[in-house]
């Protein structure tokens, strides 16, 4: 496993409903990033289709793996890099049960997927109308480190990131489609999740305007000490290269040993009270 890796925060806008066009854009960005040495290129939540596709999502969703994943696997193989992106997943066992998924592919092909656990259905969001929530947090062992995946609103719930960390993730990747009025929350939470887990956290947000929602971008890499190591522009497309040095985790974990100090017995209590809110 590599100790040091180079990430590209692929902050793009999407053409809604046009998977071909979005794959093409991901390929262009991947090629560009690879030329600058990227080991991993990350794209936003639902970057395959765009975020506001509403009922069209039933036409756009695909199984994972499936044709679009295959196409992006091809790009990863060709450039010898890892790619994370978002797409609506059609469950293999059903005809119209969907998940909001994050997908990880690499030079070795399809590696894994994560199904978003917390689906915002309030204010302008209507995700529960379309998606079933996932049940499993995941951390994937790769040549570029152990990577945990979360999606957007999951970041408001520390247990999702925590679970990926407890499963070994050193780099938590949060792909997102967050509109402008929520920026302050994400800027605080990305830092918090990194610190409390002593892990790197890469946040990649969408840009562009979809049905009046202005996605604010501001993708970033946060170090295990909470320092913002790289930050993309607000509101416009941007590709930002940044470095992850896993050796940085040890000194922080020694200084703020949040994992050593975990109290598992509190989780039972949490469960009990959460059930009786």
């Amino acid at each position: 496993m590599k100790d040091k890796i180079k990430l590209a925060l692929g902050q793009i806008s999407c053409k809604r409903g046009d998977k071909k066009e979005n794959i093409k854009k991901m390929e262009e960005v991947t090629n560009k990033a690879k030329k600058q040495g990227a080991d991993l290129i990350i794209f936003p939540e639902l970057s395959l289709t765009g975020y506001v596709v509403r009922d069209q999502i039933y036409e756009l969703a695909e199984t994972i793996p499936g044709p679009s994943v295959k196409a992006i696997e091809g790009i990863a193989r060709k450039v010898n890099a890892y790619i994370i992106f978002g797409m609506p997943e059609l469950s293999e066992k059903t005809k119209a049960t969907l998940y909001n998924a994050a997908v990880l592919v690499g030079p070795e092909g399809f590696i894994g997927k994560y199904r978003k656990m917390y689906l915002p259905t309030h204010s302008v969001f209507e995700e529960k109308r379309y998606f079933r929530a996932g049940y499993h947090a995941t951390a994937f062992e790769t040549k570029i480190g152990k990577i945990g995946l979360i999606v957007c609103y999951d970041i408001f719930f520390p247990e999702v990131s925590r679970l990926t960390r407890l499963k070994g993730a050193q780099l938590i990747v949060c792909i997102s489609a967050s509109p402008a009025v929520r920026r302050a929350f994400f800027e605080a939470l990305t830092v918090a999740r990194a610190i409390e887990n002593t892990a790197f956290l890469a946040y990649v947000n969408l840009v562009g305007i979809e049905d009046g929602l202005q996605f604010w971008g501001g993708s970033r890499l946060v170090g295990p000490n909470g320092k913002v190591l790289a930050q993309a522009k607000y509101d416009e497309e941007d590709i930002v290269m940044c470095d992850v040095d896993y050796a940085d985790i040890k000194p922080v974990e020694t200084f703020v040993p949040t994992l050593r100090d975990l109290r598992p017995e509190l989780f039972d209590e949490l469960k009990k009270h959460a059930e009786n809110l």
Partner: protein
Amino acid sequence: MRMHHLELKPSILNLDFQEVEIKIKRFIKDYVEKSKVKGIVLGLSGGIDSSTAAALSALAIGGDKVLGLILPEKETYNAKDVKHAKLVAKKFGCKTKTIDITSTLETFYKSIPEFDPTDKVCKGNIKARTRMIYIYYFANRLNMLVCGSSDKSETMMGYFTKWGDVAADISPIMDLYKTQVQKLAQHIGIPKEILTKPPSPALWPGQLAETELGIKYETLDLILYGLEHFMETKEIAKQLDIEKELVESIKRRWLSMEHKRRMLLTPKLEYRTVGADFRLPRNFH
């Protein structure tokens, strides 16, 4: 956006208007580009809302791509309003066309059997809808979008003509209360004489928005802001030191006007229904 315990004082309506300007301009430019149209048409009344919408359109896509239609008619003709409309157009480089719609209106009135000239609301609505037809004619003819000028206060109150002044392809200032539009207008440099003029839909002579609504915008906006934030009428009345009945009447009016904001109600009969569970993106860009 505030989410703490609300204190309904005027400053609660403050926004970072530089940021608001940027967001609205980006929204307009993005929508025009993706729609692949040649520009924007809008009605210019000389009032603050349409002046602001025109100015923002011009700042977003260039004044040469913005056509302001000045559509006066005899009954409510006010030379000052026409002057103000032209002033804004000139300042922001918009093109204008002035068309007197009096003869159209008169023909229209005459053609209606049992037309009642004393019913000023029905008659006034004809004016707003006639203007809409002119505006859409040019949008259609020139391959442009119609930009609406409705603000949040009048939209929440249903204080507009259904299919009339509210008809548009985009409504860039509809999420701003009137007093916020006033501040935004000032921020982007709308001439002072327009800022200080009392708002009027000008559907009949002497019509004034605040008289007709029965409340000053400064108070109305705070009430509406409270309602938007799920405040109870009792609490709003207490904080603003006004009658609870007044707040309740505003709330009733806001709720009863939803039919003017949501279009095309139909009984649910089939699998997916327009306006109910046909949930589609507005466009695919």
